């Protein structure tokens, strides 16, 4: 099956300081790498979860797929089109097939425009005529009563605003939706609503998802594959169930072990991981995770590991994977 999205060796850098400031502060490299050497594929009708903590680069990666941020190196291939280096005008047609749902559902809607106007916006921007009850159809798809179309963003609850975000993302029948923290701010008892909706839409319309999240427990139940990021690099990716059962990278293992379990019998005595995520400006040498790794060996401190692939589709960036 041909890939829908194929990302190869992607790199995104940001300028942390102007050249002059760098000179004054004696900083050699004023750039920080938010995304470094990332390769990832998404098949049609597949849900991939991109998991990581703050500073992992997952949001930047999501934004670079849709062109809000432009990568410096590597390639992003969507179907047959190469996205890197595409002009803004050419990107526009890509944005019919790839759309994004944002983390803050109310803030991502324009304050002064009605729900109906916002759902119809993608049509207007691309000059596609809207059929008469197109917006009604979209509202129904996301389970919102039609009269909400006349409401304004501040008149919606968080859950309703999220559904409007989904409706807008669905407007032009995209093939891939990038969902940035779809469960952020939602109570556990209602998280399922939005995720069930997304799954439902996948079954009906064949959409692929890239779900960017730090909500690990939920990832297990909604994604086919998961990709774990640390300091801008992909450290492990593969089938969700296998990774949850037997993580190969020490960071993945520590991450999964760190999630507090809602069961008093499962209290942990030891902390799964010490220290904090290093600053992106001061990347550790060798394997960037080694200062915090419980399994580190001498080689890890000077030799950066390459990504190894396994027959089951797993890939791990580690000299001594646990599996």
């Amino acid at each position, binding site marked *: 099956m041909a890939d829908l999205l194929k990302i190869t060796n992607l790199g995104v850098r940001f300028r942390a300081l102007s050249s002059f400031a760098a000179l004054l502060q004696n900083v050699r490299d004023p750039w920080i790498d938010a995304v470094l050497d990332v390769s990832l594929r998404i098949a049609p009708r597949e849900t991939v979860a991109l998991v990581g903590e703050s500073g992992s680069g997952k949001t930047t990666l999501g934004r670079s797929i849709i062109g809000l941020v432009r990568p410096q190196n590597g390639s992003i291939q969507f179907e047959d089109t190469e996205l890197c280096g595409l002009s803004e005008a050419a990107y526009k047609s890509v944005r019919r097939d790839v759309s*994004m749902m944002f983390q803050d559902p109310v803030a991502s809607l324009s304050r002064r425009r009605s729900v109906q106007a916002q759902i119809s916006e993608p049509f207007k*921007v691309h000059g596609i005529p809207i059929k008469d009850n197109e917006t009604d159809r979209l509202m129904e798809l996301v389970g919102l009563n039609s009269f909400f179309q006349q409401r304004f963003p*501040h008149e919606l609850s968080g859950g309703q605003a999220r559904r409007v975000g989904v409706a807008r993302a669905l407007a032009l029948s995209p093939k891939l939706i990038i969902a940035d923290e779809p469960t952020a701010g939602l109570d556990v008892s209602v998280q399922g609503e939005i995720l069930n909706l997304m799954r*439902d839409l996948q079954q009906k319309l064949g959409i692929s998802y890239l779900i960017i999240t730090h909500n690990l427990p939920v990832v297990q139940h909604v994604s086919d594959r998961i990709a774990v990021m640390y300091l801008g690099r992909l450290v492990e990716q593969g089938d969700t169930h296998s990774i949850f059962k037997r993580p190969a990278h020490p960071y993945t293992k520590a991450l999964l072990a760190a999630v507090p379990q809602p069961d008093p019998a499962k209290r942990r005595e030891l902390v799964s991981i010490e220290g904090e995520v290093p600053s992106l400006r001061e990347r550790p040498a060798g394997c960037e995770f080694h200062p915090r790794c419980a399994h580190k060996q001498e080689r890890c401190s000077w030799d950066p590991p390459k990504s190894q692939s396994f027959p089951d589709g797993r890939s791990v960036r580690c000299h001594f994977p646990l599996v």
Partner: protein
Amino acid sequence: MSVPISDTSVQKPAGSTAYRQFFREPLGVFGLVLVVILVLAAIFAPYLTDYAPNTIDIKSRLLPPSSEHWVGADQLGRDTFTRVLYGTRVALKVAAWSISLALLGGLLLGMIAGYGPRWLDNLLILIFDAVRSFPTIMLALAIITLTGPSLNMVILVIVITSIPVYARIVRTQTMSLRENEFVLAARSIGTGWLRMLYLHILPNVIGPLLILASMDIPVVVTIESGLSFLGLGVRPPTASWGTILADGYAYVRNTPWLLVAGGVPLILTTLGFTFMGETLRDVFDPTLKRRD
């Protein structure tokens, strides 16, 4: 499996309560009333008085207030009350034109500076700062001395010196909005810069700007009066509060009423627009958010 219909709860919209809030503030309402009076006075000037503003009547020279001349007459026997009324027209005309043009210019340039490429922003800021480094009155004096006094020149000067102020505010707002999620979302759909500015940025920057503009009106009116007072604004015999004040100043030993007539409307204008503007600002101030 069908998707459940989401709940139907609704949050209270902010617009209607703002309206009600405004009318609860006595100073704001008082300001609004004054403004309305001024506007009505300007519009209906011919109907509120029997005199024409420039009719000379030497017999009535410098008369104190009476039943025929409610605020007295000036040194050429012209009815002061009438001149004040017509002066309102001048004041409001200057205010309307200069503020509107400044707003337009400020909006356009500010949005372009805030949303466009860095180099354009740097260039515009440079121009703004250069213009702002001249004190308004000095610039007015310089230009008008060259071109001769006229109302249009006054308006032009005010526009030129106000645009950078408004533009800077719009620019700052635009720059912070640029990073907001709804702007990113619009970009992710493919929205171009023109549509973005018009549909998403403009409605969000115009609010504070309008409030600022309303507070600027008394400043502009005072500048016009000041220039007219110095003889650099309207040409005689046109009535303007400034020229009335000039006359009042010259003839203060004969009658204090001209000074009063020129000064009081200025004070009322300032009070009215300032109170109204401040109340508007308080009402729309986002820091009035309630804690959950």
